């Protein structure tokens, strides 16, 4: 007879606790799946009417007349504006975000690093409507001289030339504001990634006689590349879908204008926001269709990011 009963090793191999927990977490995952599928299916269904009775080619049509008879509308203008503002935003925010993250992790003294990190994170808390408000009334007047400089000195590039001598409410300025909006995302995630670089690699490269920048190039950046791409992609995702700031800043002219320092342009999201209130029937259906296109573009962006991350997973050294 024993006072203690040893635990039974034989019997059911899965504890109830484990089974339940696994069930709950799986259920949560499936819920996410279902919700997303529902969104996609439902919205596609709702956009079909406008797609079916549209005349002309939806990709090249530069008009917006979904309620006309016959309806004629296309997304060319919207795609142009969406992509251009986002590209400009990334071109500015990714280098600055990564540079800031590097500074905080490898260059700054502890106290400055914490403060700067906190300040940059705080920028993420600023809502888009405030960016729009401030961008319109305070930032734009300051940035116009820079736009003028671009058209004066780099104006031989058609993209920077300006025929109207008007520089406000342009795609360029919207891109600048977008850059500021996605900067904290890029920086915060990059910082987390850099912080995870194992000290051993850093010391190994220093022990080989590397300067600090060489150490970063040798030990930090390669290890962090998937994470940095992920950071950039999350930033891009936010830029693509940003509605309110763009709606407030861009002067909503429905046309394609390659001269990005000139006013005017429209993005898919801003277009929906501005036109939804007064839209009905076919117009609303057309807006939903453009929303699905935007959704699809975002999908492609995310898939590409995922693919890049996975390709290098073998070399990433993470768990």
């Amino acid at each position, binding site marked *: 007879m024993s006072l203690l009963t040893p635990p039974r090793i034989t019997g059911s191999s899965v504890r109830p606790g484990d089974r339940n927990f696994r069930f709950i977490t799986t259920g949560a995952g499936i819920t996410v799946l279902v919700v997303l599928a529902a969104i996609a299916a439902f919205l596609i269904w709702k956009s079909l009417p406008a797609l079916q009775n549209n005349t002309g080619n939806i990709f090249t049509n530069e008009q917006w007349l979904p309620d006309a008879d016959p309806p004629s509308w296309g997304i060319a203008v919207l795609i142009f504006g969406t992509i251009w503002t986002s590209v400009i935003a990334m071109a500015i925010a990714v280098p600055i975000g990564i540079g800031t993250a590097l500074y905080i992790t490898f260059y700054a003294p502890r106290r400055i690093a914490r403060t700067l990190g906190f300040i940059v994170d705080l920028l993420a808390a600023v809502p888009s409507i405030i960016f729009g408000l401030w961008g319109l009334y305070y930032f734009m007047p300051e940035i116009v001289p820079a736009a003028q400089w671009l058209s004066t000195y780099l104006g031989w590039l058609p993209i920077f030339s300006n025929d109207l001598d008007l520089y406000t409410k342009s795609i360029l300025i919207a891109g600048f504001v977008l850059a500021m909006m996605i900067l904290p995302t890029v920086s915060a995630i990059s910082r987390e990634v850099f912080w995870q670089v194992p000290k051993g690699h850093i*010391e190994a490269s220093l022990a080989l006689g590397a300067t600090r920048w060489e150490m970063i190039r*040798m030990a930090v950046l390669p290890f962090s590349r998937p994470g940095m791409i992920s950071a950039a992609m999350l930033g891009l995702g936010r830029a693509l879908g940003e509605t309110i700031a763009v709606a407030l800043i861009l002067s909503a002219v429905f046309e394609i204008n390659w001269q990005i320092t000139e006013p005017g342009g429209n993005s898919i999201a801003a277009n929906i926001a501005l036109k939804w209130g007064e839209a009905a029937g076919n117009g609303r259906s057309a807006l939903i269709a453009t929303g699905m296109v935007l959704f699809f573009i975002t999908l492609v962006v995310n898939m590409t990011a995922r693919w890049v991350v996975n390709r*290098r997973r073998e070399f990433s*050294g993470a768990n």
Partner: protein
Amino acid sequence: MNPTPTKLQDSVETKNRIELENLSIFYGDFMAVEDVNLQVRPQSVMSFIGPSGCGKSTVLRSIDRMHEVTPGAHIHGRVLLDGEDIYAPNVDPVLVRRMIGMVFQRPNPFPTMSIYENVVAGMKLEKAGRSRKTDLDDVVERSLRGANLWEEVKDRLNRPGAGLSGGQQQRLCIARAIAVQPEVLLMDEPCSALDPISTLAIEDLIHELKNEYTIIIVTHNMQQAARVSDETAFFNLSGVGQPGRLIEVGPTTEIFSQPKNQQTEDYISGRFG
């Protein structure tokens, strides 16, 4: 198998490769190590032994200025490499680390690089793309042979460096360190994370490397020190919260059979540590 030691002061033909002169190491205001005086002859192996926390790793890291990675760390005294003070104001720490290589306790090959790329990592810093492939190939083979790793990996040089076993990874790190032909090789408990067979392999390697490099190895394993080194330095704390000090240094056979200091004898015979 240690060569018959000659008395340190009578080594006529060679200067000391490394010399520590009144070296004290501080972290901020806290003195971690006090007043170390030590000479290391060229092409020899010296081991640092002592209980944990006695400062042996700290002293080791001060030799290639790695302790400066910790903010607030500084030294008093001098550390001489072939007679030149590496802490002099106009000395470039990057160059110091290029000439004094280091192998760490946990093997740390760069995970994003292949075996080949790992070995030439240090070299690429100097040349930045100017070197020819055949030169690099020669270096890779020389270094991997020098680390007794060539036969095992020569057919998979393009595989990730992190895919090797622990012992192989450590030998890869050694290959990487010797690829740049440093004058001194510092090893901070290089075998403590490895299995006994890999440990033996690395100890054999050290015997061979000794012909070309000056090696200082920190180890908490006294038998290893006895097997591997020509000279041994014993460090100890003078008391709780006190800085570490160098208690005794001398030829390994003497330290282990006839130590001059009572503390050394106590440590060797296992009365503490």
